[in-house]
């Protein structure tokens, strides 16, 4: 069969795959991707897995290695249920931002699907991971797998030493603050190499070993300390602690007075994993759009060159159109904007603008309209943008009309929504701004910061929630999360809701009010 296929120029025929065919397909696809799209990718490691293993991978946030925690079990049961009921198909692939780039392929896929998935993940996502500035600056693809391996081992080790319950308590609390555990504005330090990590751990262990309880019994030297306390003004205090601090987990890890070294290390692990995923959350549309654009373009090119049969192409197109299906807002199947569809449409739109622009495009995008080099334009967009800036920059009026976007204003106190803008001259700018804003993770997640703590006094930890547009926090989950903060901090914690514009305190909630 292989002979037959190669004679006719086809990469494969029939739906069965074997490793030789996969390898041949990858090489052909990679060659054309480098030659035609100028993609630049990490080396690829393809792993064939069964559907059950795919479910396993799903439930541990898509990573091949993960520490143990009950919440992953819960997600597994949920995913398994959806899968069993056929309420949701499994993804055909899973790709990990690592070097080498790991791509999981499901064994059930037909050869046509494997080719599609190879183009999508092994080239599209892979290129994006390697070249997008967010990933380049914020994640360390070479070190993540060995770090996860360390994390898994370390947490298992802690469970042996300190008991599963104690470790679980820390993980629960840290997971609750995962979203507040990332640096959004300044770059995180690089993952330390294994050697350094071992050094850190050894130091911690040494501290634990050499701890001597006698020091605690020394009488405090009177006078000196007291004067010091009074002199330390609030401003001084904030300066020494680097406040305000948006990364709650970082603050707790460094400054909490009650945590043991191993507990700090666990918080650090959760924090680093949260940070690793932060760029992915900011580039959903771009990442999926890039991968979808790449697979669509490559598959068509291969088909045009007679390397994919018509039957296989039909199957590929059918799957492609399933992936980019976007129902309208009033359709029962509507569940938000499909990032695959929006990303692909925008990128194809850029392709169109740079090759055959209309007068309107020349007006809106003077720098790229008609420049003829859509490859370079796209490569540049993939390199330098995240969802928010990408949409703000490249969403064209033509696309707004095609999607028939409109903006709905939702004021909680009023009994109705109001249509603010539609796809007309006056609406384009507003729709574009509103859509871009909705993809700004920094703006759309609650902004909570540590503002003050008196380490020498009652150690009351004060948090501020900057309330934007009057959006408050949901009461029950806020209280439960505050309880977690308290368990990590050890002393009273209070959260004040402060209006971002006026600076007025709207509401204050303290753990002493919650109890527990």
């Amino acid at each position: 069969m292989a002979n037959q296929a190669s004679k006719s120029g086809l990469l494969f025929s029939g739906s069965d795959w074997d490793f030789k065919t996969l390898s041949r397909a990858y090489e052909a696809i990679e060659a054309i991707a480098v030659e035609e799209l100028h993609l630049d990718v990490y080396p690829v490691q393809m792993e064939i897995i069964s559907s059950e293993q795919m479910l396993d991978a799903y439930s541990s946030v898509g990573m091949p290695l993960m520490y143990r925690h009950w919440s992953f079990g819960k997600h597994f049961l949920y995913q398994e249920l959806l899968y069993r009921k056929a309420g949701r198909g499994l993804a055909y692939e899973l790709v990990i931002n690592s070097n080498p780039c790991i791509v999981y392929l499901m064994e059930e896929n037909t050869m046509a699907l494997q080719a599609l998935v190879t183009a999508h993940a092994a080239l599209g996502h892979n290129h994006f991971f390697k070249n997008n500035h967010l990933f380049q600056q914020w994640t360390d693809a070479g070190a993540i797998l060995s770090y996860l391996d360390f994390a898994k081992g370390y947490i298992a080790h802690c469970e042996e030493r300190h008991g599963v319950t104690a470790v679980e308590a820390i993980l629960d609390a840290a997971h609750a603050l995962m979203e507040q555990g990332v640096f959004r504005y300044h770059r995180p330090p690089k993952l330390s190499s294994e050697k350094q990590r071992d050094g850190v751990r050894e130091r911690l262990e040494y501290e634990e070993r050499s701890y001597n309880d006698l020091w605690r019994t020394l009488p405090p030297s009177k006078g000196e300390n007291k004067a010091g306390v009074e002199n330390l003004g609030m401003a001084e205090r904030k300066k020494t602690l680097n406040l305000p601090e948006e990364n709650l987990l970082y603050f707790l890890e460094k400054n909490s007075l009650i945590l043991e070294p191993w507990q700090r290390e666990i918080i650090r692990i959760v924090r680093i994993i949260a940070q690793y995923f932060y760029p992915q959350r900011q580039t959903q549309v771009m990442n999926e759009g890039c991968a979808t654009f790449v697979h669509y373009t490559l598959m068509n090119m291969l088909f045009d060159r007679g390397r994919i049969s018509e039957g296989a192409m039909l199957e590929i197109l059918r799957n492609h159109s399933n992936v980019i299906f976007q129902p309208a807002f009033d359709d029962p199947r509507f569940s938000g904007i499909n990032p695959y569809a929006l990303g692909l449409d925008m990128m194809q739109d850029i392709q169109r603008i740079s090759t055959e622009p209309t007068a309107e495009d020349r007006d809106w995008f003077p720098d790229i309209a008609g420049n003829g080099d859509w490859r370079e334009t796209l490569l540049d967009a993939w390199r330098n943008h995240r969802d928010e800036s990408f949409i703000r920059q490249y969403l064209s009026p033509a696309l707004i009309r095609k999607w028939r976007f409109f903006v709905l204003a939702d004021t909680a106190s009023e009994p109705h929504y109001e249509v603010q803008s539609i796809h007309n001259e006056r609406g384009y700018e507003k729709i574009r701004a509103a859509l871009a804003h909705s993809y700004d993770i920094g703006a759309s997640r609650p902004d909570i910061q540590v503002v003050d703590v008196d380490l020498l006094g009652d150690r009351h930890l004060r948090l501020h929630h900057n309330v934007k547009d009057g959006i408050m926090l949901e009461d029950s989950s806020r209280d439960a999360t505050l309880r977690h903060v308290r368990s990590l901090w050890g002393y009273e914690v209070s959260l004040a809701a402060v209006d971002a514009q006026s600076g007025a305190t709207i509401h204050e909630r303290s753990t002493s009010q919650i109890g527990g």
Partner: protein
Amino acid sequence: MPIFIDRRLNPKDKSLGNRQRFLRRAREELKRSIRDQIRTGRIADVDSEHIVSMPARGTDEPRFNDARDSGRRQHVLPGNRHFAPGDRIPRPGQGGGAGSSPGTTISEDDFRFVLSREEVLDLFFEDLELPDMVKLNLKEIVAFKPRRAGFAATGSPTNINVGRTMRNSHGRRIALRRPKQEELDAISKELATLEAEPPSAAARQRITALQEELEWLERRRRRIAFVDPVDIRFNRFDHRPVPNANAVMFCLMDVSGSMGEREKDLAKRFFVLLHLFLKRRYDRTEIVFIRHTHEAHEVDEETFFYHTQSGGTVVSTALEEMHRIIEERYPSNEWNIYAAQASDGDNFATDSERCIALLDGQIMRLCQYFAYVEIIDERESHIFGTTDNGTSLWRAYSVVNQKWPNFQMSRIANAADIYPVFRQLFARQPALQKSA
């Protein structure tokens, strides 16, 4: 050229540990759910897979979330058909404006999932405070025993059947005409005598011929082995389940008005436990439900637990009915008969004597085991806990209890009291098996 790794053969259930952690965490809630299902389900279905709904308490993962019902937002939606700026759309529903606004997905916290038989039984046993050995016994499904089952051409060296092997070898040697030692000996002997004689032409010729023949025979002997791998036979063993006899379980219950929800629930668990025990011990178990007021009837499970009937309480009617059914359908030489009776202890004043007579004279002879529980109020439990005083039925059964070792009785006020009733049953397993 990418690296390919085939992970399909990797061990499965990578997330099993996570799943177990989750179940442990949700234990209390799951236990309640299982308890409800046991209350409503059939006795025989207890040890199958159960679908339970996701417990909310203890397994939510809180984080700071925006409240849906506050503030001002903008939603960008696709697919506008007829809206113009300034149009107003009424907020759908009262539930905080979900409806068409984006980001509303089905909550992960209200799904249902399946617990395996093991997990269900674990949760079920926890309430009953069963000793671990007993739990293990009940969970085990079937015991297997290896039995001789003919011969096989493959097997482990310890199982070689020498007799068979040699018989095959012998047959093969005959069929292939393997030269026998005697033939060789005869030729060697002749050679020796010929060589001892003075040489002659005829003798020399004979010697050469004999030597050739000897060589040929020896070659042939080497070629055709004495025992060849094809001859070897092994004893074959089949793993057969240990044969169990049949058992029938009689559930007797007083259904007069005094038995309320709580009493019936406890009674049901009592029956379930006995049934689990029997199911594990016997290939085939049948359950007969007899309910009684002042008259007794055999009924189906549904009626047994959920239909009330008014009337007085005459316990002996149930015993008579049981006796009748045994005579009719379950001859005691073919069936192991177990009986479990639950009651609140009320009985018609003069009936207790008759109960004693029935049990003593007829039923106890036929039964493997008769367990009686009297369900009492929790408040009464410390009063009645130890004394022999009690309801008329209790006093009557005390007499039987002293006479028959396989009669057990107990007062129970909550689920943990049930197991002691069966303690003897679980402790003396081998002795109780009739067929043994």
